[in-house]
């Protein structure tokens, strides 16, 4: 989870580092801690530290972590030579380490030589068939090759054992959504909500899936989850506000002519619409007209 303060801190540090100010190491640590994917910046600033012997040796044992971070970032940027050099350094320091072995397999993956990478991973798995990182990588590799059903199968096998791994549930949910298997995706998001009930983004994703599934019951649940996302974000999440409006509209369409009594029971949607209008007025006044016309088409504009 990346909170507002952390986001602001990253932005400040990034600005500072990009403009030649110090704090590169601090920035890299923060990126690592928050698990952000800023590969180009990590590569640039990480290399600037690694190429400076004074700075590098002042890191102490953290130096090797930085080598790993830079190697992965380099793979992400397709700078395979840099990645290879980093891995060579690590290999010299930690001969026979599995973590380096994983990096070597990853570079094969980045190169696109899938068969070799697969071989490397399976030889790593021979030593320890339950290695979490390697198992995840094999699933990822299937996904990278476009073999989504294979990735799902591998992930399911992985989750059979490591069933408390949130990241894997999230990945599985995303794959399911991309394959339009919404029922399965809903299960994954329920699992995520269970593990972190106060994270509004999981509520939001679950609501999205429910809304897409459709049907009166699902729409009503979706509206509730959009409402909880709104509550947990203090009404600052535009997507949740739109979700409330759309759900109300869809429910209205479905129950048209039937029971009218619970339609007027809450004024949530009109409040959401007003909040949206207010946000647009403040942040993007130019787009206000299209918002009002949209809301009008949803019979919500006041």
């Amino acid at each position: 989870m990346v909170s507002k303060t952390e986001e602001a801190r990253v932005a400040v540090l990034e600005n500072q580092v990009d403009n030649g100010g110090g704090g590169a190491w601090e920035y890299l640590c923060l990126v690592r801690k928050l698990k952000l994917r800023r590969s180009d910046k990590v590569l640039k600033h990480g290399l600037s530290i690694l190429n400076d012997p004074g700075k590098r040796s002042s890191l102490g044992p953290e130096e090797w972590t930085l080598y790993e971070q830079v190697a992965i970032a380099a793979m992400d940027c397709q700078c395979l030579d840099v990645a290879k050099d980093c891995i060579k350094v690590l290999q010299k320091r930690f001969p026979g380490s599995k973590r380096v072995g994983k990096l070597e397999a990853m570079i094969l993956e980045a190169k696109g030589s899938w068969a070799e990478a697969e071989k490397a991973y399976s030889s790593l798995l021979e030593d320890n068939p339950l290695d979490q990182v390697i198992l995840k990588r094999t699933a990822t590799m299937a996904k990278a090759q476009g073999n989504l059903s294979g990735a799902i199968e591998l992930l399911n096998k992985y989750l059979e054992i490591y069933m408390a791994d949130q990241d894997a549930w999230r990945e599985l949910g995303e794959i399911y959504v991309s394959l339009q298997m919404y029922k399965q995706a809903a299960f994954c998001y329920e699992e995520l909500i269970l593990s972190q009930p106060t994270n509004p983004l999981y509520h939001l994703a679950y609501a999205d899936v429910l809304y897409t599934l459709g049907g009166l019951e699902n729409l009503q649940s979706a509206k509730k989850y959009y409402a909880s996302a709104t509550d947990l974000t203090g009404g600052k999440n535009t997507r949740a506000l739109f979700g409330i409006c759309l759900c109300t509209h869809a429910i209205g369409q479905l129950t048209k002519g039937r029971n009218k009594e619970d339609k007027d029971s809450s004024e949530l949607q009109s409040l959401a619409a007003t909040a949206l209008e207010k946000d647009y007025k403040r942040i993007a006044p130019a787009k206000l007209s299209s918002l009002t016309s949209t809301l009008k088409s949803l019979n919500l504009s006041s």
Partner: protein
Amino acid sequence: MGPGFVAGVLGVLILSHAAYSTIQYRSLLKITEEEFSGPPINVVVELLLGLVFCIWAALTVPGQFRSILPHSEENRVVSLPANLDFMIFNHRGKAFPLDVDLKLK
């Protein structure tokens, strides 16, 4: 080194003085062979004063209080971390290699 820190130092000093006077008082009682029932009233006042100072220092010096509410402005979750364990390299970044040549020396 704000006023809170000074208050903390003062509070600790007062507390140690109270402790010292209590020890003195007890040795006095030992000489006069009386029972110790409690510290004298001025030591108690001193103790309370020291306590107040210490509490004040402890509440102000270490840092600002942060909100524990999930929807408070600074705790609000704005994004999820990139799922780095499942990072794939087969993406469109491949078509746009970085133009700067970086090298590990």
